[in-house]
């Protein structure tokens, strides 16, 4: 089975690379590959080369550590070990199961009926997950702030051991969790052993830290960290944390002797965890069968949302505009994906937090934090949400064969697809803006009240225009360049696909700026004309004017896109990889 596992991995990798290279013959992927490569180069590698030009690195010496960081760095392995202990304990409470126990349909179809033992299946899954973990650890090394090439390789190696151990450990947790309530006493007791050990370890650590804290309360957060680290380094806590510190030590060990010894001990911990998991192969069969059973009952591909049929209170009338029918369709999707009660609870909690934060006064950090978060949420909703929320033609073009049979005017189809997503994104943005406006006094004390209110009102008026404009651009791209736009939850992978998305993002923002320009010019003229008479309130009529112009542009665009929709060939639509 080991050779069969390697066969699947090597052949899949080779063929995937071949397919990706072959598709570079298509101009859009070729251009995308260039864009993706350029992005990576200028974002990461060019910066690394610039940072490597410093004298200290050229001389091969490690960068100097500031004196203030010496003490925290000395206890960093202990702190890291403590963090791993808490993660190890916390993982028992995660509601998810390990991904190593999830097999694809093909794997279920070929490997489950095959004469392959459970242990071999587990080893296969561990092997199969290595590519992703190697990539992840390589990225950690690449983004590491210190050192030159070789030290990054050391960091990557150390990170790989941590990632693999964590992955395998979480699989063991999933298997053991399934047996915590087993009827057989021995099975149950064995399953509870790691839980008990972790609870004891946490209690010891908490006791030691608490003792030290009481004797010498720290003056600042950094001192607090150092105190915790020193407590974690003292016996008997250091003994309890030994396996966790062993995993973290290679990240901080000096080359060569200390590093090699640290790596050896980390590998011992990895081997121990792997042994524990591989000995749990009896529970593996049940856990994997449970996962297969869930997949049988809910045959949903990974990443696709799960819909629950619930009464939404909106019954589509038998007559009316076709745009309303499309909006209703999208609304049903949203309301069956999102629980209304949970949403209402979230809004009530947000409202309560806002009121409490405002009542606590300006000096209170909660108000500033919430206000800043709300402002960021508003800007995210306005500028990025239309890219992410794809409940329009970017989803429905998957059903183009069906849409084309409907007796609906093409421009009405386009308009109808825009209605619901623009409504919900605008509602989200307005909610965040309302909170930010309410708390603006704490964040922007130096800004005049009139300007704050005028600015918020203007932004509220402009929000639907900006959102609708972006959605129109995205849907236009889907109609005019269908092969460039992934549909539904499809996410083509690879450097070329990333480059395509970057090009689309850049083009979208450029077109957005161009579409807002006429409205912005008219709005600016109105503001200049009125601001000397009515002050900051002039922002409101200016925003109205801009919004009206953008609305006209959107209306004209949807009419102009009608022929594009009519001409669209089902074969031109991008299919999933």
């Amino acid at each position, binding site marked *: 089975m080991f050779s069969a596992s390697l066969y699947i991995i090597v052949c899949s990798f080779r063929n995937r690379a071949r397919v990706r290279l072959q598709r570079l013959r298509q101009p859009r992927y070729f251009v995308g590959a260039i864009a993706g490569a350029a992005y990576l180069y200028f974002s990461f590698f060019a910066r690394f080369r610039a940072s490597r030009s410093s004298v200290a690195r050229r001389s091969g010496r490690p960068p100097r550590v500031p004196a203030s960081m010496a003490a925290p760095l000395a206890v960093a392995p202990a702190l890291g070990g403590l963090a791993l202990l808490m993660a190890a304990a916390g993982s028992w409470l995660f509601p998810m199961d390990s991904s190593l126990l999830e097999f694809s349909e093909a794997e279920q179809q*070929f490997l489950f009926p095959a004469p392959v033992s459970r242990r071999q299946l587990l080893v296969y899954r561990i092997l199969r997950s290595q590519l992703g973990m190697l990539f992840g650890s390589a990225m950690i090394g690449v983004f590491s702030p210190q050192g030159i090439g070789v030290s990054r390789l050391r960091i990557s190696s150390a990170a790989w051991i941590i990632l693999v151990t964590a992955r395998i450990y979480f699989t063991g947790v999933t298997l053991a969790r399934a047996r915590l309530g087993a009827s057989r006493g021995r099975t149950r007791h064995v399953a509870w052993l790691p839980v008990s050990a972790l609870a004891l370890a946490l209690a010891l650590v908490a006791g030691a830290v608490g003792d030290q804290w009481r004797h010498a309360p720290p003056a600042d957060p950094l001192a607090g960290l150092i105190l915790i680290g020193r407590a974690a380094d003292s016996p008997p806590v250091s003994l309890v944390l030994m396996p966790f510190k062993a995993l973290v030590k290679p990240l901080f060990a000096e080359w060569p002797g200390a590093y090699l010894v640290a790596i050896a001990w980390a590998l011992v911990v990895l081997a121990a965890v792997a042994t524990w998991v591989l000995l749990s192969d009896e529970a593996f069969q049940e856990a994997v*069968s449970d996962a*297969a*059973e869930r997949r*049988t009952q809910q045959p949903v591909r990974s990443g696709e949302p799960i819909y629950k049929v619930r009464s939404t209170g909106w019954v589509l009338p038998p007559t009316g505009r076709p745009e309303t029918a499309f909006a209703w369709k999208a609304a049903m999707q949203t309301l069956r994906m999102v629980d209304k009660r949970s949403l209402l609870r979230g809004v009530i909690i947000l409202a309560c937090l806002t009121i409490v934060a405002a009542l606590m006064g300006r000096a209170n950090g909660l108000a500033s934090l919430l206000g800043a978060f709300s402002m960021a949420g508003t800007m995210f909703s306005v500028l990025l949400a239309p890219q992410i929320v794809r409940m329009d033609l970017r989803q429905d073009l998957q059903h183009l064969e069906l849409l084309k049979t409907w007796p609906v005017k093409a421009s009405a189809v386009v308009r109808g697809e825009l209605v619901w997503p623009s409504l919900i994104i605008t509602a989200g943005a307005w909610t965040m803006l309302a909170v930010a406006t309410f708390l603006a006094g704490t964040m922007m004390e130096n800004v005049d009240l009139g300007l704050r209110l005028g600015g918020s009102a203007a932004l509220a008026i402009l929000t639907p225009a900006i959102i609708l404009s972006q959605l129109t651009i995205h849907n236009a791209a889907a109609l005019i360049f269908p092969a460039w736009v992934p549909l539904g939850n499809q996410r083509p992978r690879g450097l070329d696909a990333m480059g395509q998305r970057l090009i689309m993002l850049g083009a979208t923002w450029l077109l957005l700026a161009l579409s807002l320009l006429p409205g912005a010019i008219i709005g600016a003229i109105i503001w200049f004309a009125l601001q000397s008479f009515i002050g900051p309130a002039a922002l409101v009529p200016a925003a109205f004017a801009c919004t009206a112009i953008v609305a006209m542009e959107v209306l004209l665009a949807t009419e102009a896109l009608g022929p594009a929709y009519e001409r669209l060939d089902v074969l031109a639509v991008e299919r999933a990889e």
Partner: protein
Amino acid sequence: MALSVEHFGRTYATAAGSFTAVADLSFTVSSGEIVGLIGPNGAGKTTTLRSLAGILRPTSGRLCIDGFDLTEHPLEAKHRLAFMPDEPHLFEYLTVMEHLRLVARLYGVTDVADRAAALIEELQLAGKEQALPGELSRGMRQKVVIACGLVRNATTLLFDEPLTGLDPIGIRRMRNTIVARAKAGAAILLSSHLLHLVEEVCSRVIIMDRGQKVADGTFAELASRADLATAGSNLEQIFLRVTGHDAHQ
């Protein structure tokens, strides 16, 4: 007995409680026999086949392949088994030939090149050896899955709707393939909604409805039962009568 099912039951846990897909099912299939497993949608046929293939665990009962209990001796049982499912799920980045080589490796088949060549010819997959699943039609993918099942000398073959997506030539060839394998000594359990095919190739028929076996016997035996058939009934009429969908009842 090549295939033996004893008091097999399978229950699924659902949000609303539990759901029994199959209850107390027992039957056998001998070497060289082709047994048809038919029933309405949701009768439990696929659950039975997937449990026999080792994909689902039985909630109760015993499943044996050539005397090896699937739960107690899974490796020995699975060595003798080939499952050809209704939905062909292939590894998206393995070619047709690589799928065959993979299966050969899993089952210890040493002469995969010769066997693969013969199967590719038999199942009309010539020219598709280096194709990825994404380049194949549904029918072609179905043939690849069947080829993977037949590339080794399994003594028990499980077919779940093997003709879905095949063209008429493919259907005829598949039928001949199934009959040939039975003549070579394999025990075959075939689930299909194509009752004329079942009537043609199967020596015995098991009818399931709502998770239970409601009839088991050769076509002649079923046709001779007054409660199941009138004179001159074909399998479709027997099926409709047994499952309570006969308009004349």
